[in-house]
């Protein structure tokens, strides 16, 4: 396999978009292309990650549309729909294209415009990723799956609501340093958990998860430019190598798993990524996890091998996962703070790692970061893509 590098990254501010779906898709792509400064180096192919444009925005064939809007013909064009893991899946497809020698330069854009519909419709659209006969038909939504998962994890490992609140507070704090984050509002333990008013401020969504345990519904796009070694050398600059990618799947219906608290796909995908990279968890300086719900950050931090099972909440409690801690997690704000435009999230995680490894992350820069890890969690853990990025001199 040929080595693959990230040579450009860009995103737009997540939140509620005032521009069209097409414009949103173009925006981050153009920023990433400008960042890569490709000059006369052509883009061979475009991969667009998205989950709901056909349903929510009434738009299909979006990769072809992006090629057209950016005048990138005759570049190849594919769209990837893989639920919430669409972003990292699209990234993987582009990496494969370069690694195989079929392409030299690829644009990967993740985009979602979920706020085009109301909250109920948006929740239903995301719930359509659940098992149609075993889950969706009974009204199961992602918050409800996460609520049941959280209850099991709390009962089994001693995680308390205060730990969930700590994740939310940390990631809101981190998002305050990220100008691209959807949520830029600090929150406190008193305000969301201990004050008498917390019951109103932070109402239950799916017990034991409350409002501030859930990511916001966001519009947004994020893009990276990938290049072969030869192309990357021509472009110069700090090179971020795609050191490893791993993917794994699990049962569609969560209740069919032997142990529903075991995020097996996260565990296997992460291990594959580390094996491919020839690195281990102890080499990692900065981590982006898929905290669509606060409980997932804790559980993924264990399943990805950064902490022993049942110990993730203790590391959180010790401040190890904060910016400045031993292993900063979601310094971008994560899905909780940066927001979660589903198809864009996996790419946004890689944009953040790229900025971190290049030293371009501003106030939230992790000092001397040279290895980054991202986990893009699809379905309810039934399709997971993990990536390891490494800065090269």
């Amino acid at each position, binding site marked *: 396999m040929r080595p693959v590098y990230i040579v450009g990254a860009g995103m*737009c*501010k997540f*939140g*509620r*978009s*005032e*521009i069209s779906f097409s414009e949103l898709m173009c*925006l981050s792509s153009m920023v990433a292309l400008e960042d890569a400064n490709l000059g006369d180096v052509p883009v061979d192919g475009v991969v667009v990650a998205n989950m709901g444009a056909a349903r929510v925005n009434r738009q299909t064939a979006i990769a072809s549309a992006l090629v057209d809007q950016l005048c990138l013909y005759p570049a190849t064009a594919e769209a990837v729909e893989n639920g919430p893991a669409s972003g990292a899946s699209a990234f993987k497809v582009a990496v494969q294209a370069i690694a195989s020698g079929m392409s030299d330069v690829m644009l990967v854009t993740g985009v979602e415009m979920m706020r085009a519909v*109301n*909250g109920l419709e948006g929740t239903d659209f995301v719930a359509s990723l659940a098992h149609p006969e075993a889950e969706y038909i009974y009204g199961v939504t992602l918050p409800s799956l996460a609520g049941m998962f959280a209850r099991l994890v709390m009962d089994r490992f001693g995680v308390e609501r205060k730990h969930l609140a700590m994740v939310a507070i940390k990631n809101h704090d981190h998002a305050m340093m*990220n*100008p*691209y*984050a959807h*949520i*830029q*509002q*600090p*929150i*406190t333990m*008193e*305000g*969301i958990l201990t*004050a*008498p*008013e*917390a*019951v*109103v*401020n*932070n*109402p239950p969504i799916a017990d034991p998860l409350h409002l*501030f345990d859930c990511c916001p519904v966001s519009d947004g796009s994020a893009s990276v430019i990938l290049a072969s070694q030869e192309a990357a050398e021509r472009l110069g600059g700090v090179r971020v190598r795609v050191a490893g990618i791993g993917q794994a799947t699990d049962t569609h219906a969560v209740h069919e798993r032997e142990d529903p608290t075991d995020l097996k796909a996260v565990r296997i995908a992460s291990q594959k990524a580390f094996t491919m990279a020839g690195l281990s968890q102890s080499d990692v300086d900065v981590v982006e996890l898929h905290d669509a719900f606060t409980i997932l950050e804790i559980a993924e931090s264990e399943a990805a091998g950064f902490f022993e099972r049942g110990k993730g909440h203790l590391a959180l409690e010790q401040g190890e996962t904060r910016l400045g801690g031993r292993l900063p997690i979601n310094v971008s704000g994560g899905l909780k703070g940066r927001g979660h435009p589903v198809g864009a999230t996996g790419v946004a995680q890689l944009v953040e790692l790229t900025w971190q490894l290049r030293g371009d992350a501003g106030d939230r820069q992790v000092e001397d970061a040279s290895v980054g890890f991202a986990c893009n969690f699809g379905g309810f853990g039934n399709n997971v893509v993990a990536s390891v990025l490494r800065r090269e001199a």
Partner: protein
Amino acid sequence: MAHIGELEALLRPPAMDMQPYPPKVITLASGEEMVVRQIARDEVPKLLEAIYPLLLVERDYYDIVSARLFGELLAFKRYRVKDEYVLVGLIDGVLAGMVNGRLVDEKVGMSYHTMTIRRGLRVGSHLFAAKMEYHIEHLGQDEVLIVAESPIGFRRWMIEYPLDKRYEVQHELGGVPSWVLTRDTYMAAKPRLVSGRRPVSDELLAGAASIVLPGEEIVVRQVTGKKGGEQ
């Protein structure tokens, strides 16, 4: 002057005695403390100044709510609406939101508008709850007539409480028929939706004695959600 006074008396609606709203303080999700208090007529110009830049903000129906609220506040200031009141939420003295309504008669209230300036902290939800608390608990009314002009309002009032339909009554704001919050509905919702502590400390009350405006740019930016970053 006497002649003008007589004419003015004819133009002003007769007023009922209204017990004032006792101020309270609410700890928000951010940990900040919001004082909720009633305003006097001479404070209306400050609120108009805050609302003015929102008159053309279409997002979440701020334009129609601003335009109507602007008129209602003017009518309150100049005695052209019967038994109106206005409550504000102030964080460190800075305006975070406002609500208003009026008494139809001794037993029935009418909710007018809820406007949030500082978004993302359920300020609107807290202030609407304070308005319902005023009608039911402090003014001793049996029910409050309510409509929503935005999907957010519909979700917050009609669904969250939940309100009952009172379609045979036309709300003064026009448009759709009225919904109603009864005393029973209020009491059932109170543990979930109504919060705040009394008495408010002298220090906090002093800090909330005059209304500080966040500034036009900040108001529009907060309302439209455009906080930081590029788009």
